[in-house]
């Protein structure tokens, strides 16, 4: 096993309603890199992300973290707490924006003073400090996504999973995401990102994996990737059109 592989997948199969939706022999997430997963609708991108982030544990095959086989039960809580996910359509819990951002820290029994300090700092970086006392259920789509990004980053995750974070956002929010996202991610962080956004891929990707009908079509460094050959699976971002 290579040293720079933080997660490795071996012979993973995911069956949903008696249909094989994911069939991957080998796949790796590279440490401290932006690992992009692309592909058309129904190609299995989100299913793969759910398995890698330990959200979905109902699959066949094996998953390795730093060469160690990952258990599929409550024992992996410690490992799960090193990961964070930003969803396409984020779910925010009843309560204020502050409560939502602070929640992952509360679950880890972090001291309240540290929580307050970290939440305020994170909210400031995402320009939502004025929303902290507001109910999360009254936010706009962009504000919700910013809150969910803050919630995902508040724990300084070792691996950050991003599932089409900008798909449901308006133009302004996409611009904010694209211009701020790289700054929000630390150098120690590994990112696994599912995206259709060609600009995001061009600007951020180190490694790119193309999925087709649940199988890996190709996986390689971005330098050798030819967008022209895979145009159908990668959308032109709205921001690029204006």
């Amino acid at each position, binding site marked *: 096993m290579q040293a720079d592989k933080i997660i490795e997948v071996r012979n993973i199969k995911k069956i949903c309603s008696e249909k094989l939706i994911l069939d991957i022999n080998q796949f790796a997430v590279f440490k401290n890199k932006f690992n992009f997963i692309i592909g058309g609708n129904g190609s299995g991108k989100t299913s793969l992300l759910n398995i890698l982030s330990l*959200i979905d544990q109902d699959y066949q095959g094996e998953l390795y973290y730093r060469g160690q086989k990952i258990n599929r039960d409550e024992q992996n809580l410690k490992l*799960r707490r090193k990961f964070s*996910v930003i969803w396409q359509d984020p*779910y925010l*819990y009843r309560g204020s924006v502050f409560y939502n951002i602070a*929640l992952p820290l509360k*679950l880890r029994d972090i001291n309240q003073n540290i929580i307050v300090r970290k939440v305020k700092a994170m909210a400031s970086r995402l320009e939502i400090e004025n929303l902290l006392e507001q*109910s999360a259920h*009254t936010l706009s789509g962009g504000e919700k996504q910013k809150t969910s990004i803050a919630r995902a980053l508040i724990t300084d995750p070792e691996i950050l999973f991003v599932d089409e974070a900008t798909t449901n956002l308006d133009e302004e929010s996409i611009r904010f995401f694209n211009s701020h996202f790289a700054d929000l991610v630390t150098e120690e962080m590994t990112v696994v990102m599912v995206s259709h956004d060609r600009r995001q891929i061009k600007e951020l990707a180190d490694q790119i994996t193309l999925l087709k009908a649940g199988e890996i079509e190709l996986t390689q460094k971005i330098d050798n990737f030819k967008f022209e050959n895979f145009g159908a699976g990668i959308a032109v971002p709205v921001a690029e059109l204006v």
Partner: protein
Amino acid sequence: MDYYTDAILRALQLIVSLDSEVIQVVTTSLKISISSTLIASVISIPLAILIARNKFKTKKFINIILNTMLSLPTVVVGIFVYSLISRRGVLGELELLFTPAGIIIGQVILIVPLITALIRNVIFSMDEKLYKTATSIGASRYQKFKLLILEARYGIIGAVIAGFGRVLGEIGISMMLGGNIKGVTRTITTAMSLETNKGRFAFALALGIILLSLSFLINFVTYFLQEGKNYASR
């Protein structure tokens, strides 16, 4: 007409003057109803989550049984529990018949299916993303359970209040298992039945007004919790 006006006036007088007998009946009723609702809730909340969130072979069957038990007549529960706690019953030695505990057992059996089914429906209707998000932010199994309860709290409180309303207004179980003993097992409904038969119409009417007011309060709180004006922003 004077008969009605007179009865209503005397009933109101009994309420306003905090008549000791009225207070005793209402207190007994509330003590028994609150106890049975609390016990039933402790059983129903985890049971509902278990049914709603887990896949198991007998799930469909359990749901059918649960739905059937929603329309359980109080007298059927009364007969069933009577057979268990009467002198010749399997629990006869515990001497629970004609005690508040006897009524509580019956009422718990009556409302466990109701509260469970209502909470099950609340959990069913919750966004699947809630569970995925809880996992993604590092919640343990217990913390996920806690988060789920917190998210469903208004629905759960509504279900518990509905259960409380059901036991507060039932008469079959209280009469059969409680025996209508003054100061011990005499509840609002059993007292109303007895006092009407005895001709103390104003006293029964006073209890009726209190019961109706409590029912209104229960429905008001339930409505406010589930569909209040700030519901969307909660």
